[in-house]
């Protein structure tokens, strides 16, 4: 059935347009399209900016210390872990706190991005039923906000390094590259899990159960060398081993990570991003009936 044009003679002249109007098809069975999603994100870049800003300020809004918490949190952790691991469990190594913190910051960024993007997609679900926004916007702004937090928490790390008597090495120039690779891995994982969490409420609980196990399967608070050699190959199947190494090598070992580590980590990140996007683009068109 087609609506006829309204009564003849009353149609106003259309306004002349300099550019052709943008067309948006909304077809049954459609998947998100990489190119149009990208274009949509560019159009909504001020939305990403506001969401990041909100993420960073709301987190600390109710505390008088505000963003200072980002700086204090690693300090507290360091004190606790240094006490535990340099007096109770003793590993033979210099400055355990830096060994631990350098890897922990990378892990924490990954973990927080996944957890927060699941929450963000759910919280903003009501909004997505009423306003059309690019659906990837929530995971992306979570990952960006997390990266800014990660950058801020490097400041106390460097302070700790100076206080404990080790210098801040030049190799830290590698950290932005490391953050990009870990960020891509986190974003891919966040895409897949946040999309699944829209459909199944227990995905969040499952991740919460798995996450500590994943952390202890990664050499963050213990050195890889304490593992029995026969288990070493198993641990090395965990992509996070290489990802945390990207942070630990320049900060603790004061070297640029080996080419092999960078390669494996980048491949894992690219793989996570591709798989995450595939899952997301298939599930996203059906979000509205589940949010």
């Amino acid at each position, binding site marked *: *059935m*087609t*609506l*006829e*044009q*309204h*009564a003849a003679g*009353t*149609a*106003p*002249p*259309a*306004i002349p347009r300099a550019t052709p*109007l*943008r*067309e*948006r*098809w*909304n*077809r*049954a069975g*459609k998947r998100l399209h990489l190119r149009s999603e990208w274009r*949509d994100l560019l*159009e*909504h*870049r*001020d*939305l990403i*900016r*506001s969401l990041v800003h909100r993420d960073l300020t709301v987190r600390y809004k109710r505390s008088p210390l505000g963003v200072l918490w980002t700086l204090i949190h690693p300090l507290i952790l360091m004190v606790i872990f240094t006490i535990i691991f340099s007096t109770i469990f003793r590993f033979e190594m210099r400055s355990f706190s830096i060994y631990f913190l350098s890897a922990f910051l990378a892990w924490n960024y990954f973990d927080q991005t996944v957890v927060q993007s699941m929450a963000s997609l759910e919280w903003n679900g*009501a*909004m*997505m*039923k*009423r*306003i*059309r*926004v690019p659906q990837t916007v929530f995971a992306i702004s979570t990952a960006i906000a997390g990266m800014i937090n990660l950058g801020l928490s490097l400041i106390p790390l460097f302070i700790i390094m100076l206080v404990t008597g080790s210098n801040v090495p030049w190799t830290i120039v590698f950290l932005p590259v490391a953050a990009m690779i870990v960020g891509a891995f986190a974003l891919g994982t966040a895409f897949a899990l946040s999309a*699944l969490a829209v*459909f*199944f*409420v*227990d*995905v969040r609980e*499952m991740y919460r159960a798995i996450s500590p196990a994943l952390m202890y399967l990664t050499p963050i608070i213990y050195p890889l060398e304490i593992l029995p050699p026969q288990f070493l190959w198993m641990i090395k199947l965990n992509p996070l081993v290489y990802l945390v190494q990207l942070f630990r090598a320049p900060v603790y070992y004061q070297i640029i990570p080996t080419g092999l580590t960078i390669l494996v980590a980048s491949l894992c990140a690219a793989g996570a991003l591709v798989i995450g996007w595939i899952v997301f683009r298939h599930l996203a*068109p*059906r979000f*509205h*009936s589940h949010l």
Partner: protein
Amino acid sequence: MNLLEFHAVTVRYPLQRTRSLKEWMIQHAKGQIVREEVTVLDNVSLTLGPGDSLGLIGPNGAGKSTLLRVAAGIITPTEGAALNRGMVAPIIELGTGFDGDLSGRENIFFNGALLGRSRRLMEEKIDEIIDFAGIGEFIESPLRTYSTGMVARLAFSVATAVEADLILLDEVLSVGDAAFQEKCEERIKSFYRRGSSVVLVSHNMDSIEELCRQSIWVQRGQIVTSGPTADVIAAYKESLHSVA
């Protein structure tokens, strides 16, 4: 060139399903997945050109809001396809994307960002928005201190501050007071006079009659009648009386 096209759009929702991944996998393994669905829109086709104004009438749950959401690109059809062209100004539910803790001014920018308008564009328009909404000095107060009518006025002002090609309105005009309603109607008319098109959902037949040349009567997801507004409203009212 049409600004909105529906090609045999059907929307179905799954009626009930498990919300647990564990349950779902167990059911899947046992082959017990039942697909019960409810049809919300059933084979709807329509086109809307520049300068058209379309009213949607029908009882609650008829599918009017779903139709509007498909038009806005929020809901993907289960079958068929919809197309919109140009800049869309959807006002589907008032207060959406507004944050009670932020001030009116901050909310204007956040809402503009949600709609995909750049910050620079919003900065250009902000005085006009505040003025049109009639918020006055309250603009710096947090939004939770606003009345419903004030939020409605602000939402309408933000969404229509930039000249849109397609304006989608769901029961919006009933919130503001009479003076503001008149202002809104004026603005909507100025839009389609300049070649934009408007889709309006309302239970208020007066505003449909005032604003829409064409109308559709929707019931159980299907188009019952379409045509000039006066005829469609007459047919709809007659059916209400014959039931009573």
